[in-house]
C-alpha cells in the first residue's frame, strides 16, 4: 500500500464537515427532454445532478484500480433503446488517493442519453426511468455506490 499524500484531502475535497445521517449527496432532475418524440426515432434527454458542497462523484470512465465510475442506464422494459451516453466535461486531476488520473464532477453533473424510441411504443404519455449508479466522496469518506432513479415523462407520437 502506498501512503496517501496529505493533499488527497484537497482533491477529495474541501469541506471538513460530513454528514451525521447522510442523504444522497446528489439530487437528480430532468434537464432537457423533447416535447414529443415519434416512435422509432432517435432522441436525446439530459439528466442533471446537483451535488452537495464538498462532495463529488466520478466520471463515466475511470482507470482500472481507480474509483468506481458512474453508470447510466435505463430500466429494463422501458420503451426505448439506450444507444450511448455523453457526460459534461469532468474535472481531471492526478488523484493521489488512487495514484491515477481520475475524472470527477463537483457542483453539477450532466449526462445526456441518446435513445431510440421503441417503434412499438404506445402513443401518448410514456415514462422512462433513468438509473444513475454512482459513488460519491468528500475529503474524508467515500460512500458505497448506490442507484438513484429519475423518471422522465415522454410523449410518444406516431
Amino acid at each position: 500500500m502506498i501512503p496517501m499524500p496529505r493533499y488527497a484531502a484537497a482533491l477529495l475535497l474541501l469541506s471538513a464537515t460530513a454528514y451525521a445521517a447522510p442523504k444522497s449527496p446528489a439530487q437528480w432532475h430532468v434537464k432537457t427532454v423533447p416535447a414529443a418524440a415519434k416512435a422509432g426515432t432517435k432522441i436525446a434527454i439530459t439528466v442533471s445532478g446537483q451535488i452537495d458542497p464538498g462532495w463529488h462523484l466520478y466520471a463515466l470512465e475511470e482507470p482500472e484500480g481507480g474509483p468506481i465510475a458512474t453508470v447510466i442506464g435505463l430500466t429494463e422494459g422501458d420503451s426505448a433503446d439506450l444507444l450511448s451516453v455523453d457526460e459534461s466535461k469532468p474535472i481531471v486531476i492526478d488523484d493521489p488517493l488512487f495514484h491515477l488520473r481520475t475524472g470527477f464532477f463537483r457542483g453539477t453533473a450532466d449526462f445526456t442519453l441518446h435513445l431510440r424510441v421503441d417503434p412499438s411504443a404506445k402513443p401518448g404519455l410514456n415514462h422512462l426511468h433513468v438509473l444513475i449508479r454512482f459513488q460519491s466522496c468528500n475529503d474524508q469518506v467515500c460512500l458505497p455506490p448506490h442507484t438513484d432513479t429519475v423518471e422522465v415523462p415522454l410523449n410518444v407520437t406516431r
Partner: protein
Amino acid sequence: MQLPADRRAYTAARAQLDPAARLAAIRQFLVDYPKSSSTSRAQNAILDLLLAYFPNHTAEIDAQARLLVKGTSKSNSHINEEETVAQKLAEAGTSGIDLSLAAKLAKQANDDLNEGSFAKEIDASYSDAKLPLPTSAEIHAHFVQEKSEGLSIVAEVALHQGNLNEARKFAEQAFATDPTVDDTNSTRGEIALAEHRDADALDAFERAQLYGGLRPALQQKMLALYRDAHNGSDANLQADQDARYAQLFPPPFKPSPHTPPADGHTVLVELFTGSGCEPCVGADLAMEAMLASYPRTELVTLAFDQHIPLPDPLANPDSLARATQYGIIHTPNFAIDGQTLEAAGGDRGDSEKLYKDMTKTLDADAARPSGVELHLTAALTPEGSVAAQAHVTLAGDDQLQKEIAILPVPPLPATPDAKVATTPAPDAVPAPPAAPSLTLNFALVEDEVRYAGENGIRFHRMVVRALAKPAGQGFALTSGSSATLDAAFQPAEISKQLSAYLDGYEKHNERFENTHFLAKDTAINPAHLKVVAWVENAADHRVLQAAFVSLAPAKSTGEAE
C-alpha cells in the same frame, strides 16, 4: 439496468470465456464503437489478454504495447502509462515478455519524471479545477512515491533481463527515494532472492507486506524464506511481524491523561470502519488509543466492519445490519451512546486530533448518570460455547424519560436543506420525548484480530463477530423493573457461518463486480473473546448503559453501573 449499447457490447465481449474469442470480440467492439468511452479500457484489455494467453504472439504484443504509449508527451499521465505498460511486460509470463521495449519505456518514464514538471502539472490541474493548491511538501511526498515506483519498475525489468547489477542499483535508488512503497520493497526482495541474499530478501518482503501490498506469489516466497531461516518452522512468523509492525508504525501519539468522572455510566462507542478504507486508519488508531486510556468500566467500544470502499473480510451480516440501523453508509463513522457523530477520518497523523475530538464528546457524555444498572457475566463452557448473562435494573419511566430528554442533541447534518428542516424556531417548544422502549443486546467480539488489510492496519480492535439478537431488535425490557437475560454464542458455528458468508459474498454481491478478499481467516480465537452488552432506547438508538466482560484467560466478570 439497460446499459448503453457500447457498454452492452463491451460487457458481452468481456464475457466470452474462450480467450481467443474474447480477444476477437474486444477487437470487434473497437471497430463497432470507436468513440466509446470504453476504448481505452478495451485496448488495455487486449494487451492483458495477449500477455496472459498468447505470450508467443510477440509482434502483436509489441504493437499493442506501443499503441498504448504512442505519442511523445511528457505529461504525468503519459509517464504513468509508460510505467504501467513496462511493468505489465516485465511481470508477464515467468520472466517477462518484450523486455527490450519494457526497458525502453521504464527508462524513458524515469528520465521524464522530474519534480519540477511534476509539480507544475499538478498545480495547473488544481488551478484549473479551482481547488486549493497542495503545499510543496505534499507534492514532494507524492513525487517521491511516484519516483520510487518508477525506479523500481526499471529495476524489475533489469532483473528479468538478468542484469542484476543494474537491477540492484535502481532498486536501491528507489528505496532511498521512498522506503515505504510496497512495490519497491517487493522488487528489492526479488533481487535479493536472485542474488541468494536470503536475509535481505526476507527483510524486503516483510516490509512490503507490512506496508500493505505483497502479492500472494511473493507471500509464498516470503514464507519459504522465513522457514529456511528458522529451522523449517514458521511458528514465530506472526510474532516477528508484529514486532516489525510495531517498529515501522510506532504509536502516532501518547494519549493525554484521563480524569475519570466522579459519577456517570459506561459509554458505548461504536466504530463503523473498513480494512480497505484509507481514512479509517486514523479512526481505528483513535479508538485504539481510547481503549488504552479508558478503563472498560468507563468505556466499551465495538467495531462494525463494512465493505466500504473495498470488500472487508471482517464484515458480517450483523455488522452491516447495525450500520443500516443507523443509516450509516460511509466509513469511518462513530456513534457515542447511539448518537452518530459527524464523520471524521484521516491518516495516522490525524489520529491524535480525532482522539481529542472524540474524547471531548465522550467525557461530557460519561459524566451523565444512568437510570440503568447493568451487570454482565460470561463464561466459556467446556464445550466451547459462550454463555452470557445480564442482570438489568431499570429506573421508572419518569427518570428514564428525563434521562433520554437530556441526552445531547446529535450534530446537525451539514446540508442547507437539512438545517432548515431540523433547526427549531427560536420560540419553539421541544416535543416531550416518547416513553422509553428499552432493549438489551449482546455482542460477541474479539478484542484483537490480526489481519493485514489494504489500509495497512494490522491489528483490529473489538471486532464484532456476532450479535445475540438482530440489530435493532434485542431483548425487550420493562422500565421500573429488573430482568435477567441470557445469551449463548457458539464460536465454532459462528466461524463457519462467517466463512460461508465470505464465500457467498465473493460469488455474488451487489456492490463489486469481482470480489476477492485478501484473506478469509474466520477462525475465532478464544483467547481474545469478549462479550459486550448494552441497553438502548429502541426509538432513537440512544444507549443508556453498557458493560463488558472478558472470557480470557479464565472466568472473570465485569460490571458497570
